[in-house]
């Protein structure tokens, strides 16, 4: 009985705290997390397709660049890359500004935190997406590419009519995985001061001394975001694979 009373007590405290403004903070956190993830995915898709093309290229130089990219950005801790872009970026920007004399010798130019964050997370996401795109391209039936050549299609037509639609279809399950990774990576850019979900939960926990409550709540919200995306990607997969017999 005492336990139950205790629990009710806790819940009403939680409600009061959330109603007092921390709830709104967390909601803003969610929208920033989604914004960071979407922008990073788009940066990653652009870089990832270029890197995949480089890795598939017949030129040794391009292949080396592509290989190095995926090796480095999948092999380093995410946090290190983020620090590198944010603090390293600040140092570079400051250096440039001081040398052109546009700021004083003691002033600094900060890397914009959102930009530094999404660049870092996007570049990491791009390394994983490159592998997804490369694998998808290699899974296209070679004969279909040959038929496209034999029917007089130019390289651009082959890409648009035969390669792109099939790479997208084959890439959907893999991109679903990368999306989940990217949502989780977005939490790391709280260190640059972007008020996404992790940072909002952190602030709330520290200011109210209710760490258990706010971190658990943030954990649940992350789980909701990652699990909602699973059925969405499954639906996309069903749509893009509609031309294929699914083994029963």
């Amino acid at each position, binding site marked *: 009985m005492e336990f139950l009373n205790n629990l009710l007590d806790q819940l009403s405290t939680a409600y009061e705290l959330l109603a007092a403004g921390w709830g709104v903070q967390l909601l803003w956190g969610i929208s920033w997390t989604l914004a960071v993830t979407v922008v990073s995915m788009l940066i990653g898709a652009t870089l990832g397709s270029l890197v995949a093309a480089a890795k598939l290229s017949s030129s040794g130089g391009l292949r080396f660049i592509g290989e190095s990219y995926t090796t480095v950005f999948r092999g380093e801790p995410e946090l290190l890359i983020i620090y590198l872009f944010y603090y390293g970026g600040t140092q570079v920007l400051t250096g440039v500004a001081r040398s052109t004399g546009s700021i004083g010798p003691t002033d600094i130019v900060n890397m914009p935190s959102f930009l530094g964050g999404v660049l870092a997370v996007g570049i990491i996401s791009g390394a994983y997406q490159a592998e997804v795109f490369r694998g998808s391209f290699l899974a296209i*039936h070679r004969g279909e590419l040959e038929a496209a050549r*034999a029917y007089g299609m*130019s390289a651009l037509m082959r890409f648009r*009519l035969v390669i792109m639609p099939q790479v997208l279809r084959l890439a959907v399950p893999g991109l679903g995985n990368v999306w989940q990774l990217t949502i989780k990576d977005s939490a790391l850019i709280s260190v640059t001061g972007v008020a996404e979900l992790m940072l909002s939960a952190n602030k709330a926990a520290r200011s109210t001394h209710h760490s258990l409550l706010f971190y658990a709540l943030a954990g649940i919200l992350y789980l909701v975001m990652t699990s909602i995306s699973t059925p969405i990607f499954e639906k996309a997969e069903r749509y893009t694979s509609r031309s294929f017999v699914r083994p029963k």
Partner: protein
Amino acid sequence: MSADLAAAAKSASPPGDDKAAISVKDMRKSFGDHEVLKGISLEAHKGDVISILGSSGSGKSTFLRCINLLELPDSGEVRVDGELIRMKQGRDGRQMPADIRQVERVRANLAMVFQSFNLWSHMTVLENLVAAPTHVLKRPRAECLEQAEALLKRVGIWERRNYYPPHMSGGQQQRAAIARALAMNPKVMLFDEPTSALDPELVGEVLRVMRSLAEEGRTMLVVTHEMGFARDVSSQVMFLHKGEVDSLGEPKEMFARPPTQQFKQFIANFNK
């Protein structure tokens, strides 16, 4: 004119006519140290149906694929309707097309039918038939759709026009692939072992379509193992052995009196 005379007039090329539908001169191709084609020449005039026979490894598929440059021949000339495909020396010393636009234009005139069909699996049958005509030949879509439906009726799979290729039998896919080739209104059709990947009971339906194309006067080069088709349908038989033309001639004559020991043995193996 008697039937024999008409046939003779058709197969004999008029003197000075260099506008063969397709003409190949002295084509050579090696893979590494292995010389697959040792100087092969061939001329096909409008309406010719040439069966290209040979045991596996004889170079017959490579020869066909060198004609539309899916493989790059090391040397030799290909002319389509009198137009020479221009080649140049590449940086690695091998020859390559001088003008890829010309190659694309010529390829559009040489519709190919593959052993493994190679329909675009993410498009419906109908989309497969209109993709190249609308994009490569820039013909109006409505016109292409109309033609595509007519062609599908002709090869007997119109009811499957909205199916995706993986949902159809091999025989249906190959008939769709032949319709895709016809949709290009090609000058010459290239068939690369069109029935070799099919279950035996599905071969007949594809051969019937090919026979009807031959009868309406299409120019066809057919790499095949179907002796019946070679003997009864084609106007010429070319037999390749170890990368060379072993024998070439009119099919009835070739099969009745094999001109070489190699060819005799080749057809004997098939009759076993």
